[in-house]
């Protein structure tokens, strides 16, 4: 990595950045708890129901959603991906639903298991590029 003169470096104002948004049911913000149990089938679609509002997507939820998208695109089961990345299917299922505060190393392992970079799973544009790349 080359050291560069940082005085010319600029970064767009965060206020102008369009954060990824996520459709969730009003009131529960997409999280599961006592009042809102997780779907019994871990492959169940997480499509929101009626009466929705837009809420900022937390990074772990974005990661989980992108992970699931890429895994399904590659026709991998949770079991298969779990074996490749060294974690069990139940944990993976919960990660995909954004229920775990997953560590860097685990996220990296999951990305590597599907031949993408970790940052590809944290950005919808990068994911779109990655999907094209791994698709052929």
């Amino acid at each position, binding site marked *: 990595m080359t050291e560069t003169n*940082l005085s010319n470096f600029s970064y767009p104002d965060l206020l102008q950045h369009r954060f990824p948004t996520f459709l969730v049911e009003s009131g529960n913000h997409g999280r599961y708890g006592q009042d809102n149990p997780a779907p019994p089938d871990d492959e169940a679609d997480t499509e929101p129901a009626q009466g929705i509002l837009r809420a900022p997507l937390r*990074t772990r939820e974005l990661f989980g959603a992108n992970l699931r998208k890429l895994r399904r695109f590659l026709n991998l089961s949770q079991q298969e991906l779990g074996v490749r990345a060294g974690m069990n299917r139940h944990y993976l299922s919960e990660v995909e639903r954004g229920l775990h505060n*997953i560590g*860097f190393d685990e996220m990296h392992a999951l990305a590597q298991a599907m031949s993408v970079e970790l940052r590809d799973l944290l950005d919808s544009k990068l994911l779109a590029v990655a999907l094209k790349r791994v698709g052929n």
Partner: protein
Amino acid sequence: MKKTRPLLRARKIFGLNVRRARRLKEISQEELAFQADISRTYLSEVERGERNISVDNMESLALALEIILPDLLNPNLFTVGANGVQE
């Protein structure tokens, strides 16, 4: 257990980007740690790539640094002419 090379490299990239972004903002480890609600020691270890930092803490750091997380993972974030820096 011995860690694999690509993993260590990825952690280092993240740590270096955090450190550079922090210096660019001219804030101390103390200040950034406070803003991201983590300890200074922990931040120092993260910057050196010695910690398996959690996704929530990565998010807090990105927010405190005002840099989106995928960019903090980009090895070319601070490289001139690379796509890491948006025009």
